[in-house]
């Protein structure tokens, strides 16, 4: 029996014992309470905005319309009182047929709310007549049609657009059919309408049915009143549904890792004839399995129990997409649990990391159905799968590879320092991180060259995060901040290995070594960066556009840049010593940013 399996079994039973009768009972009670509260909250249509606008009306006939909307705080007044509404401080006053607003933003918002309420009420009244031809005479049918992207678009958009293009077979058939018509065989409105799916609704029930579909599905048929642009925020609901349980389980997981460390509880396992790898895998697998089971349950809840093979395949694909996300969550909580010195620190670290990962997942997913760039986030792929579209393998790779890489390497670095001197001592976080680099570098195949490559996905994800963080700054400043921060991230990872070698005396602090290591580290980073570029840009590599990006003399300049900035920090450490590490990195960052700003001067300064 392999070692990790024993640990896994042990971990599983131990964590079950933690829930004694009392805490299980409390949890079940609170779960029931949550379900009850959610059910009754759903009854109120989940609106929190109660009584925020005050309205006075002289028309008692309008009262029941206004009271159907809980945003309004309504009272009936006489015409005289209404005419003095400024004194009563109402947001909206209705006298006869006219609704008067005050000159504030709140009043304007109240006016817009009233407009919507009346519209909704009208729909309800009209729907009570079962006469679609007269009550809902106009319908809108929307067709989404693929068309070639033009080359002025950003390269990443281009890539993602191409990736998508292959996935929607249905639409593609449509668009190829249309492409053919350029050869003279024109389509006429007749040919198109035979393929149109519009069936005029027979009665009011069908109207409801169409409306009901719009929440999780892209709307295709509706009346003008219910016609809405593709709202980007439905994707968030999915993200919440899938991410919440992961967050909970990973908390238990990191607590369990931390438990081994408090009061040297885990010393016994370390003494046992097991490799660190086995212990880590053993401790992780039970939690990973539990999370995947929960995710499977959620998937079945959303998709229903599949009857055909096609449905089963989609469920499997959803799980395959969520898996790297779970892996990353767990890897970071594991690493966090190894680094933190107290539970407080762990709580903050895990909250911080979950917020960061959630941001990474949410931000692009908001543009599902709108923008090709959204496929950066696995959640987008999940939304598409739920909507019944298919996903190509390269789209899957495009959005999940960073998760796999970062997850697995965080696990690897955590496992390196899963040993007595790092687990049971109050070493600072920095020391522990340097420890993990040291073990990597002193391995037979370890080198600063490889270390730089390993860090690429981290830098890649960090830079994507930066876009989210800096989004709200005004334009030239956000680009400048972006340049500086991403240069800093790149310089930090390129010099981390050199720092470790010098600091731990693994290499002589000599001029020759400083130069040699800088060349190795810079080249490694360059190779990794280009590998990522080729991987994500490969679909367009054959076009003229792609060849400009990946070929030619332009290659040499970034290579030189990476080597020379790494040289700045390594020579800095050679001259000033490793104590001035951050100064050396800062210097390299300045050089790097200056170069990038020079390249982008047109965008920055017009």
């Amino acid at each position, binding site marked *: 029996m392999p070692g990790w399996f024993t640990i896994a079994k042990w971990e599983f039973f131990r964590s079950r014992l*933690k829930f004694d009768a*009392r*805490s299980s009972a*409390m949890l079940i009670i609170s779960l029931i309470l*949550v379900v009850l*509260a959610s059910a*009754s*909250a759903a009854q*109120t249509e989940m609106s*929190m905005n109660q*009584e925020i606008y005050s309205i006075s009306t002289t028309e008692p006939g309008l009262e029941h319309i206004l009271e159907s909307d809980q*945003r309004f*705080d309504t009272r009936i007044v006489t015409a005289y009182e209404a005419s003095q509404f400024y004194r009563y*401080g109402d947001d909206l006053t*209705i006298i006869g*047929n006219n609704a008067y*607003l005050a000159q504030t933003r709140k*009043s*304007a*918002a109240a006016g817009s709310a009233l407009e919507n309420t*009346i519209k909704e009420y*009208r729909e309800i009244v*009209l729907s009570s007549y079962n*006469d679609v*031809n007269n*009550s809902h*005479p*106009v*319908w809108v049918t*929307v*067709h*989404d049609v*693929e*068309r070639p992207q033009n080359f002025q678009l950003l390269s990443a958009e281009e890539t993602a657009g191409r990736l998508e293009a292959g996935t*929607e077979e249905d*639409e593609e058939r449509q668009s190829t059919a249309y492409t053919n*018509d350029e050869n003279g065989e*024109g*389509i006429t*409105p007749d040919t198109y309408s035979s393929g149109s799916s519009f069936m*005029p609704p027979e009665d009011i029930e069908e109207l409801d049915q169409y409306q009901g579909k719009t929440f999780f599905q892209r709307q295709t048929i509706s009346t*003008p*009143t219910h*016609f*809405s*642009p*593709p709202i980007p925020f439905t994707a968030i609901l999915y993200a919440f549904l899938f991410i919440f349980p992961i967050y909970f389980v990973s908390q238990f997981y990191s607590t369990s890792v931390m*438990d081994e460390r408090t009061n040297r509880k885990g010393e016994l396992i370390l003494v046992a004839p097991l490799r660190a790898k086995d212990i880590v895998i053993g401790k992780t697998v039970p939690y990973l399995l539990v999370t995947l089971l929960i995710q499977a349950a959620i998937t079945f809840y959303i998709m229903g129990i599949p009857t055909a093979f096609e449905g089963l395949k989609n469920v499997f694909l959803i799980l395959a997409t969520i898996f790297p996300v779970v892996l990353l969550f767990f890897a970071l909580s594991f690493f966090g649990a190894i680094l933190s010195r*107290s*539970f*407080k620190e762990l*709580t*903050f670290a895990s*909250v*911080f990391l979950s*917020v960061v990962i959630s*941001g990474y997942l949410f*931000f692009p997913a908001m*543009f599902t159905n709108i923008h090709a760039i959204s496929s950066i986030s696995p959640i987008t792929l999940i939304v598409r799968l739920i909507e019944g579209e298919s996903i190509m393998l390269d789209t899957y790779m495009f959005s999940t590879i960073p998760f796999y890489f970062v997850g697995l390497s965080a696990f690897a670095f955590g496992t390196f320092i899963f040993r007595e001197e790092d687990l049971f001592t109050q070493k600072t976080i920095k020391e522990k991180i340097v420890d993990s680099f040291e073990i990597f570098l002193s391995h037979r195949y370890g080198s600063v060259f490889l270390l730089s490559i390993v860090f690429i996905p981290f830098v890649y994800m960090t830079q994507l995060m930066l876009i989210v963080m800096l*989004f709200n700054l005004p334009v030239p400043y956000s680009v400048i901040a972006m340049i500086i921060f991403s240069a800093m991230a790149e310089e930090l990872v390129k010099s981390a290995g050199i720092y470790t070698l010098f600091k731990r005396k693994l290499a002589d602090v000599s001029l020759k070594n400083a130069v040699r290591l800088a060349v190795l580290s810079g080249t490694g980073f360059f190779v990794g960066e280009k590998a990522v570029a080729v991987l994500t840009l490969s679909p367009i590599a054959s076009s003229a556009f792609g060849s400009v990006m990946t070929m030619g003399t332009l290659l040499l300049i970034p290579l030189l840049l990476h080597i020379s900035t790494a040289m700045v920090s390594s020579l800095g450490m050679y001259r000033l010593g490793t104590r001035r590490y951050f100064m050396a990195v800062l210097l390299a960052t300045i050089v790097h940013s200056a170069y990038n700003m020079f390249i982008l001067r047109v965008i920055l300064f017009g």
Partner: protein
Amino acid sequence: MARSGKSYKKIRGIARKEFSELMHEKTFILSVLIQLFIASFSTFLVIGLTSFYDPTAMGDMELQGTKIAVVGTDDNELYNLLQESKLNTKLYSDLTPAYTDFYERRMDAIIIIPSGPPQGEDILNVEIYLPKSEIKSTLISMQLKEPLEQFEQQVRDIRTQRLSGYSPIDVNIIKRGINTSSTYFEFVYVALLPLLVFTPAFISGGLIIDFITEEYERKTMELLLASPASLLDIVSGKVLLATAIVPLQSFAWMLLLRLNWIRISNFFEILLVVTIIGLILVLLSSSIALTFKDRGVSQLLYSMILIFLFMVSYLFTNSPLNLVTRLSIESIGSMESGIWILIYSLVAAGLYVLMRATVSKNTITFKR
């Protein structure tokens, strides 16, 4: 009196110890970072929402770039409505040339206008072709909504006369120059502001669990109890600190929102509500932590209760979240808000009694 004075000093001592530890571990800074991240994330949401519901906020540049092909005849009412709006339209008599132009990017959308008369018996179906996966299709849908609704209204004006007993509601909303959508306004005051100011309270509730369970897990509680401080002093000190940092952070949030030109009324009352709710959460989770002494279990239970409270706040008008909303936009009288602040203070007092009871229960087991 002297007894309580000494006790207060001990409580303050404990609070100071926790505070210096908090600063030492830089966790507090991390917590502020988390919140800053959430804030920048929400600003993104605000910008997104503004541009989606209020296209004019995006500037005219992007709107003028879209061209719409209309297939139909020029005497059609919908075509006239489309022309009247700010849309850039071109009339086609046939779908084929319109489609060619769409495919070659000279046009961004196609509308096929139904040919039936408004007074007819058939349903009028408007066909719209939008470019897939392009941000333009969202923009176009948004711009088309208004003329489409006007068209629907015109046809309805004729056809609803055939419905027996139907009389349309007729309210003229007289606008006063300020244009804002209720969605945007409500997003800022109903969702963003309450979530931001309550985030520190949620965090403090989790923080105190760590404060307390850590002492048990590290077996340092016995050491502390050997000192002249009683268990009540220790827990009170921790509660004091966890609650005290709530208004500080909330204050920073409100200041930040004000810098973003979001006007907030009743500043002081909002801080008071947030502090009381923070105290409620901290007292609640300290009782949980004292009962279970295990971090994982306590945190899970606390999260469940937090979700429960969140759901319950949908059920009544002056829930803490909505109370903050109503205070911030002056939709509540000072009498009503005063009563609710009093109610929440009473809840806090009740939970303090519960916490004391839990403490004395645990003290007995410790003395053996």
